[in-house]
């Protein structure tokens, strides 16, 4: 079994007949980190997880755990353990016997087996339910059993396939914190597949955003959120207004971009050339409502009609429509908004600083994504 739990994926491709599930993936996950594979359904994140676990054999490429290639190594001998989305508890075995299953397979005697399983159950606070059958447990309890059954194998890498998706909101937040806690406590690598952006941002040291079998960006949560590499990442993570245009003028410290829809934008200067096509965006919370006279010193202004106002407690989400152009969302701090409130149908102008504009690569394919999570 590998001593270290760093996972290196080299040029991994997996095809199912003519369908490509993941294509030429390169990824290094450091030892002891909490990594989230994030993407919409069908993006290949679960396939990648199953390849690491050994439940799928990659068509091409290599997987190294702790510096050792594990291709061809059986699932149970890679130092990995997988927690299934369905929990996959053995319905004919008690909670204790479920947890002790791997020890039984190794031929550990009954007394020691039960003792060690009991210890792990205590860790997930399920020891009072040791003699129940899985069907008698709630979803949250079943998940803890699945976690205990994985932890008892002393994995270097714990693989979690959408572990929180079957839980209700309250349990999800509780379990999410607990998973992170256990990961820090054990110091092992966690690879967690999810399609929920806030989940990934909240717990991961490393977020890997995937789309149609490719990695769009692999970085820390703040980097992914604040510096999305592509328009896909910005739109999938949500919280961004994304635009495209052509560079029309270059000044000393900024460039002017003519938007595809006849708007003018100002971006920080960064080696652009006139005529070059650029994709860029601004975070919703960097967009402000211009009060009275337009504050042009912020660099960018756009006018439109207020389409919707959603009060969210400490902030207000304002959606602005602009005749046959892309709509724009501003997330405004509650005090700032209520100092100068608007109502649906009002004509407003929004502004943002050119320094808050981020240039990004264009997404690989035409994506229909809803970045409405925030």
């Amino acid at each position, binding site marked *: 079994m590998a001593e270290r739990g760093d996972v290196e994926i080299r040029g991994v491709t997996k095809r199912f007949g003519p369908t490509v599930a993941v294509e030429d993936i390169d990824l290094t996950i450091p030892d002891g980190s909490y990594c989230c594979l994030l993407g919409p359904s069908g993006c290949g994140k679960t396939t990648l997880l199953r390849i690491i676990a050994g439940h799928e054999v990659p068509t091409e490429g290599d997987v190294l755990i702790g510096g050792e290639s594990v291709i061809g190594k059986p*699932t149970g001998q890679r130092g990995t353990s997988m927690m299934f989305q369905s929990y996959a508890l053995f319905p004919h075995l008690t909670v204790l016997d479920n947890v002790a299953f791997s020890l039984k397979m190794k031929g550990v005697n009954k007394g020691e087996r039960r003792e060690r399983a009991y210890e792990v159950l205590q860790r997930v606070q399920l020891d009072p339910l040791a003699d129940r059958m899985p069907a008698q447990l709630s979803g949250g309890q079943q998940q803890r059993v699945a976690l205990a059954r994985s932890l008892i194998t002393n994995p270097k890498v714990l693989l979690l396939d959408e572990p929180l998706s079957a839980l209700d909101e309250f349990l999800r937040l509780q379990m999410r914190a607990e998973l992170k806690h256990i990961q820090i406590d054990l110091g092992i690598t966690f690879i967690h597949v999810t399609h929920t952006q806030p989940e990934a941002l909240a717990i991961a040291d490393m977020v890997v955003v995937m789309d149609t079998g490719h990695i769009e960006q692999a970085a820390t949560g703040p980097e992914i959120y604040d510096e999305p590499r592509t328009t896909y990442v910005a739109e999938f993570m949500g919280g961004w207004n994304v635009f495209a245009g052509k560079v029309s003028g270059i000044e000393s410290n900024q460039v002017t971009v003519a938007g595809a829809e006849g708007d003018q934008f100002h971006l920080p200067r960064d080696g652009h050339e006139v005529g070059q096509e650029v994709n860029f965006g601004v975070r919703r919370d960097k967009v402000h409502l211009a009060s009275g006279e337009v504050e042009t010193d912020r660099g960018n202004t756009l006018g439109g009609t207020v389409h919707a106002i959603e009060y969210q407690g400490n902030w207000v989400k304002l959606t602005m429509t602009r005749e046959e152009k892309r709509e724009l969302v501003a997330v405004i701090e509650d005090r700032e908004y209520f100092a100068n409130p608007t109502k649906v149908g009002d004509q407003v102008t929004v502004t943002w600083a050119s320094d808050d504009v981020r240039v990004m690569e264009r997404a690989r394919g035409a994506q229909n994504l809803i970045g409405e999570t925030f």
Partner: protein
Amino acid sequence: MAAINAIFSRYATALQISPLLITLLFFLIGPVIVIVIISLWNFNGFMMVEGDWTFSNYIKLFSKNLTLDNYLQTLKMLAITLAITTVLGFTLAYFLVFDLIQLRTKLLLFLLCVVPFWTSGVIRMVAWLPFLGKEGIINQAVMAVGISDTPLEFLLFSEFAVFLSYIQIFTLFMMAPLFNVMARINRDLIEAAKDNGASGLQILMHVIIPLCKPGLAIGAIFVTALVASDFTAIRILSGAQVGTVMASMSNQIYNVQYPPASASAIVLLLAVLLIVGMIMRLVDVRKQL
């Protein structure tokens, strides 16, 4: 109208269960009662004497050595048939469920297993004759290849022929419930077992077989009932060399000895119920129904 509605609502439950109740009364409980009554009527050696109540049929049955021999023979045939149909049925069901990927292939092969049931039981037995007979296909082949100079005698009119026919027909009754329970096993369980370091054999022993228990039990109940109640295969294929409970009972029926035959039937029924009860005690079948 209102009065009718009131009656309907008062007896709604009774009315809802009545079709099943009536069917069971007429076709199961009624006939059993009739058999019990006849088994208690005297048989004077030539004919039954209606209304002459006696336990003599049971006393005679239990005092004959032949009865014990018949039961031992039946139990032996049941044990061997159960063992072989379980292994075959499990293997076939496993192949259909886990080795085949396409649902269409699975269903097609499953249907193929049902083909023998398109004809009557007697024809299925008779169909073995040209295969197993002295001048049958197998013996001709055996002699042509030179394995033996004389025809193999054990093939037909023997215990072997009866087993062959039992296994051919009853394997399906073992396979179908096993197929049903196996198809319901969540594939994640097998992967989870692999993840926990289980080998192929360990997955079979600790995951698949335990989860197949209800199917094994239902299949075993089917096979028990079928073997215990068969007399056509015995009659056609055994060459009068095999004496089972059913064989002797059918002889009594042919000889119009209804009271002893009825007593024998009641004892056999209790024996089969005993076996079924033991199977049900071992496995909770209700989980899969």
